[in-house]
């Protein structure tokens, strides 16, 4: 079977070009001097300058970042608990319901999640008076909920690979489950926690549909601003904004990948030392 030019390799090449070309074009055209998006009129960074003059946009970026940091942190904590109880606790009452509630948000259409959470908040506020207003808090709760599902999947796969005998050894030597968890389990799954945090962070930063449902008049996130300007058509300013967003995400993804690779290497080295000592 030819390795270089068979059908599947051509498909892979085509697929990768298909995935990257549109973003590449977007980045190039963000440096276009012309207001007309499709006519090239020389190199310019003026659209980036205009971005920083847009107060509404800066506000939205800050709101989004604040929500994303809080949502990712809470989601990693809840996700670690969920992953731990799914992998280490065996059978407990309500396990099936719980694991369904963890996996369903991964595929549930955003419109359904957004609508149901909004109606929940409205019902709560008419019956018990909380939350008083919809805004950052309600967006945050919504984001924590779907990010927890993704975090659980990422952390769970690491917990499953982890050698349980190390935890058992610590407990045999008298460490409490809590201490074992913090001294043994957490450091071992730390790279997965980092990637779960970064994944949750980007998911929260990116969410448009759910945020639109549960937000109030005072709080506008970045995707909501982008969506309302994109609906009017293509503009060089949005291209510049998009380029900055692509840059940030690539950086975050690179860090996540680097952390995971470093952890793998460290583990491999540790095993090699163990084998040598034996």
């Amino acid at each position, binding site marked *: 079977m030819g390795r270089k030019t*068979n059908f599947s*390799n051509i*498909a*892979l090449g085509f*697929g*990768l070009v*298909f*995935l*990257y070309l*549109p973003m590449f*074009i*977007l980045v190039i055209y963000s440096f276009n001097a012309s207001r007309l998006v*499709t006519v090239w009129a020389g190199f310019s960074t003026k659209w980036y300058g205009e971005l920083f003059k847009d107060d509404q946009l800066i506000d939205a970026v800050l709101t989004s970042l604040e929500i994303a940091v809080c949502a990712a942190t809470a989601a990693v904590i*809840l996700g670690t*608990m*969920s992953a*731990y*109880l799914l*992998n280490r*606790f065996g059978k407990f009452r*309500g396990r099936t319901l*719980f*694991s369904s*509630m*963890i*996996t*369903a*948000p*991964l*595929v549930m*259409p955003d*419109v*359904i999640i957004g*609508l*149901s*959470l909004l*109606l*929940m908040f409205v019902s709560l506020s008419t019956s018990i008076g909380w939350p008083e207003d919809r805004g950052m808090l309600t967006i945050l709760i919504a984001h*924590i909920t779907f990010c*927890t599902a993704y975090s659980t999947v990422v952390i769970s*796969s690491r917990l*499953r690979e982890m050698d349980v005998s190390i935890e058992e050894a610590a407990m045999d030597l*008298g460490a*409490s489950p809590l201490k074992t968890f913090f001294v043994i389990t957490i450091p071992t799954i730390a790279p997965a926690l980092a990637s779960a945090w970064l994944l949750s962070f980007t998911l929260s*930063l*990116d969410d*448009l*549909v759910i945020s*639109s449902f549960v937000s109030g008049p005072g709080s506008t996130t970045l*995707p909501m601003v*982008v969506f309302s300007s*994109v609906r009017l058509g*293509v503009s060089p300013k*949005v291209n510049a904004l*998009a380029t900055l*967003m*692509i840059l940030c*995400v*690539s950086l975050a*993804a690179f860090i996540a990948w680097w952390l995971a690779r470093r952890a793998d290497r460290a583990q491999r080295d540790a095993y090699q030392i163990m084998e040598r000592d034996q």
Partner: protein
Amino acid sequence: MMLRKLQASSCHELQADLGRRAVIGIPFLWLLLFFFIPFIIVLKISFAYTEIAIPPYSDLLEYADEAVTIVLNFGNYLFLADDPLYLSAYLGSLEVAFFGTLWCLLLGYPMAYAMARAPRKWQSALMIAVLLPSWTSFLIRIYAWMGILRNNGLLNNFLMWLGVIDQPLIILNTNVAVYIGLVYAYLPFMVLPIYANLVKLDHSLIEAAQDLGARPVECFFRITLPLSKSGIIAGSMLVFIPAVGEVVIPQLLGGPETLMIGKILWQEFFNNRDWPVASALAMVMLLILLVPIVFFNNSRQKELGGDS
């Protein structure tokens, strides 16, 4: 010594029991409150009357003559059944999601196959390369296609420069653009589960088949393809289910011919402010998706929870 150890262990057991309850309780209650109960509220409001009030729907429970009566309004569902717009939007969504998934599979399977066959040192880099676009903003990726597919966009300019066409092709705001956007946005979700499956495939089975005289094509259809079934199912569900409820792609790339239920629900809610009808639309959509979602959950459960 023994006694101390015994005391310590019973103390730990008590602590462990409390800890166990907290670890189960906190995420459980969170998901119950913010994921499960909201669906019941949607169900409840789908039976309410639309009212011009805050919130814009009636209460199901009425207190009259010292008795509580439950007023259920099936009108919202009858309304959906009555208006052909909604039926064609559901069918339209299913059609677009089905063919979108099929296109993703046709492009994604060979990609995953090539990745699994690539030299080992390349595999993790290829995986990152496929995954990276799905980390960048969904909205931005769809927006990028608006600039490419427009009448005076890059694709048309390029084709006219080549001399293939002399009139710009109308692609943006048609279903073709919706399909391009769907495949573009969801391709990584198709490739990765199939790749994860193919990379675990036992190569000796294929060698055995070849030794016994099977041609490569026969080998693929009788061994590789059936063995990667679970990857294909997982990938297809990850694409199909969200695609049915897609809002952003039909709004930005689709046109008036694109009838999709997510878009209709969005308009019903934000433009018409008809919350009960929007709830009924969501309930019917959930009912349609229930079978694939349960299917997906069952396939995930094996991976999530180990063997228990």
